């Protein structure tokens, strides 16, 4: 028993003595954000990494280089570029902490799936890392100077997550994007980001629409008008602001509890109904003279319904007829319910989309109208 224990201990101790043994945390390059751009020779990778090898005493976290550093590397492939990164930084890259993956516009326009192949295969990368497209280059966003102690990765990740409550952008995890790209009929989408200078001459990262991809090709960008409809129709927002014009006065509504149901017509599979239900609160009424009564509330509700319906219809028309993008999963619904019909249309799906008809219904309710209604005026 004693002999076995000693033997075990010796074996245990020697197992750690190989070169490929454990990697200390301080020897890892903790990557916070990744940017992929296309280059003449292949790809250019920009990473924002935390600066763990700080100068100064053990207890201090201040460093002249700041809390994070940007590294850039080029290579024939993304894997090649990352291996160059290993040489530049003298640390082993750790992809698991990356908060955002940004693809440059040129890369996005040129088969983005091949650019993402490295991240699909690399097991340490988070499968739900948010992906975005840069309006110009990813490097510009990664190297943006936001100010002291503001990390591009955190700001970008927060910006993408905020889309759910402000309806200005959307957070798309890697697995969702790839899944839609691989699907025969679905259109994939990614938020578009841009860098602008603010009044204090500091860089600011802003949302600039939503990019659509069909058949692994960059197809179109949704701007404000069509983007609203896209977000409503896809259940991608929890709440957003809606401004309507009533009696030449501006009424601001917060639209919440948005639920969209898409159904295929039983008799004609090329007809879909999109029903958007919502609830809203009147948060601002720019009028000092006129209080709102019950009739006004009803009219406001109807106007809100009209507006949301218009947004959705515009979005659907643009994406289906102009871009040939199926953003609502029509193809999947036909595939699940009418597989034979699906076999026929899938051969020329884009032209089928142009003939798809959609019936949009928007139904809402105003839950918090304001004190005027309660007082009976």
């Amino acid at each position: 028993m004693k002999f076995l224990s000693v033997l075990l201990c010796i074996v245990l101790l020697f197992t750690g003595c190989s070169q490929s043994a454990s990697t200390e945390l301080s020897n890892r390059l903790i990557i916070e954000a990744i940017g992929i751009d296309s280059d003449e020779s292949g790809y250019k990778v920009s990473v924002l990494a935390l600066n763990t090898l700080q100068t100064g005493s053990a207890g201090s976290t201040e460093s002249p280089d700041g809390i994070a550093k940007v590294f850039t590397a080029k290579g024939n492939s993304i894997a090649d570029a990352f291996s160059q990164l290993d040489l530049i930084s003298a640390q082993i890259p750790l992809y698991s902490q990356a908060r955002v993956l940004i693809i440059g516009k040129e890369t996005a326009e040129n088969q983005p799936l091949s650019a993402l192949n490295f991240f699909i295969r690399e097991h340490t990368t988070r499968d739900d890392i948010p992906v975005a497209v840069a309006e110009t280059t990813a490097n510009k966003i990664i190297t943006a100077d936001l100010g002291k102690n503001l990390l591009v990765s955190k700001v970008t990740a927060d910006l993408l997550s905020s889309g759910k409550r402000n309806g200005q952008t959307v957070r798309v995890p890697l697995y969702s994007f790839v899944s839609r790209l691989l699907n025969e009929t679905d259109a994939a989408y990614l938020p578009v980001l841009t860098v602008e200078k603010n009044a204090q001459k500091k860089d600011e990262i802003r949302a600039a629409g939503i990019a659509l991809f069909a058949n692994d090709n960059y197809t179109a960008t949704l701007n404000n008008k069509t983007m609203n409809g896209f977000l409503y129709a896809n259940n991608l927002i929890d709440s957003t602001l809606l401004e309507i014009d009533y009696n030449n006065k501006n009424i601001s509504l917060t639209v919440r509890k948005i639920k969209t149901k898409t159904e295929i017509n039983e008799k004609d599979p090329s007809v879909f109904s999109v029903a958007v239900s919502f609830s809203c609160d009147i948060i601002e009424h720019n009028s000092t003279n006129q209080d709102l009564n019950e009739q006004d509330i009803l009219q406001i509700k109807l106007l809100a319904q009209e507006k949301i319906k218009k947004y959705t219809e515009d979005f659907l028309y643009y994406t289906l007829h102009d871009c040939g993008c199926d953003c609502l999963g029509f193809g999947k619904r036909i595939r699940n319910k009418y597989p034979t019909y699906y076999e026929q249309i899938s051969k020329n799906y884009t032209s089928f989309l142009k003939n798809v008809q959609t019936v949009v219904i928007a139904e809402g309710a105003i839950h918090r109208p304001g004190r005027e209604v309660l007082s009976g005026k």
Partner: protein
Amino acid sequence: MKNQISSAQLFCILFVCRLLGTFTYMSQLQTTLHAGSRIVATGVCFLFSILSAIPVLLYLQKQNNVSFLNAVGIVSEKTAGIIGISYAAFFLFAAIITITRFGLFAGTVLVQNTGLYISVFFLLLVCVYCVYQGLQPLARTAVIFAVILLFSLIAVIAGTIGECSLINIPGIRENEIPNIIKQAFFSACRNIEIPALLFIAEEIKGKAHTVVLKFITAFSIISALLFTVAGGVLGEYGDQQIFPLFTLSSVAKFGFVERMEDLLTGIWIVCAMLKTAFLLYVASQCLQKSLHKEIKTCHTAIGAVLIFAGYLLFSADIPTTIRLLRTWLLPAGYIIFAILLPIVLYLLFVRKEKKLQKENRI
């Protein structure tokens, strides 16, 4: 009787062992199936499992608490030894497949800095230790980890059900039916725990056949649920992953708890260890009753050495590993050892019983 386990403990062992196969499910290993077909294949597998378990269930019902080899010995002493060694070889082969499959999983997603051979060596060492302690401690440990496993499954499902969209799961097409049946058949043939019950029948307190039915039902329901959620969340992305359920666990999150796949992998390591220990235990029971006295004392060590040797052989390169995992030897072995042999011996035993009854009457 000493060293007996209860039916609840038996259920937990079977459950933990079998679920390992689900966790390390590899899409496109046997056939290429989409999410919807995978779910249907699980349902068909449930039927195949019940049908293929009937011979063993019949034996257990008839010969409760009598080990299979003892029963065979009553019919024919000479064949008992040969049958014992054959079954031992089958269980050891199944253990090699389990370890190799798990080694592939660990090598793909865990990336141990220490070599996988060393990790497998220590895993087998712990398995040998477990087997030497007997079936009872193994069963009790399985109960503890079954509870933890259940909570982890609930966590994965709860953390991903919000993202699940059933339109991502395509329906089955006619041309997929042969693949579905093939996948279901291969999955059913991986229920090695069922023929293993023949050799631990005397160590089970209570009715083993009801436990088997409950176990097959529970395992099928949970597998179907996991595949449904995986298909609904990951869609076509899941088909790109070698281990889609592992990817599902990496996506699961609620609140601030994220990246649960490493923690869950820890639990799956335990499942692999318990399954290997269980198969090694059963194999060593077969060897113990069939081999000569001199070799009896180290039957467990012999079994572990054979498993390790098998692992080294089949994990030399990926094509060899895939060939092993796709082999028809395991389903063929299952048909012989779980269906044919129990039926034949059951019928022989019934014939002998009738003969004895006739002789008693005379």
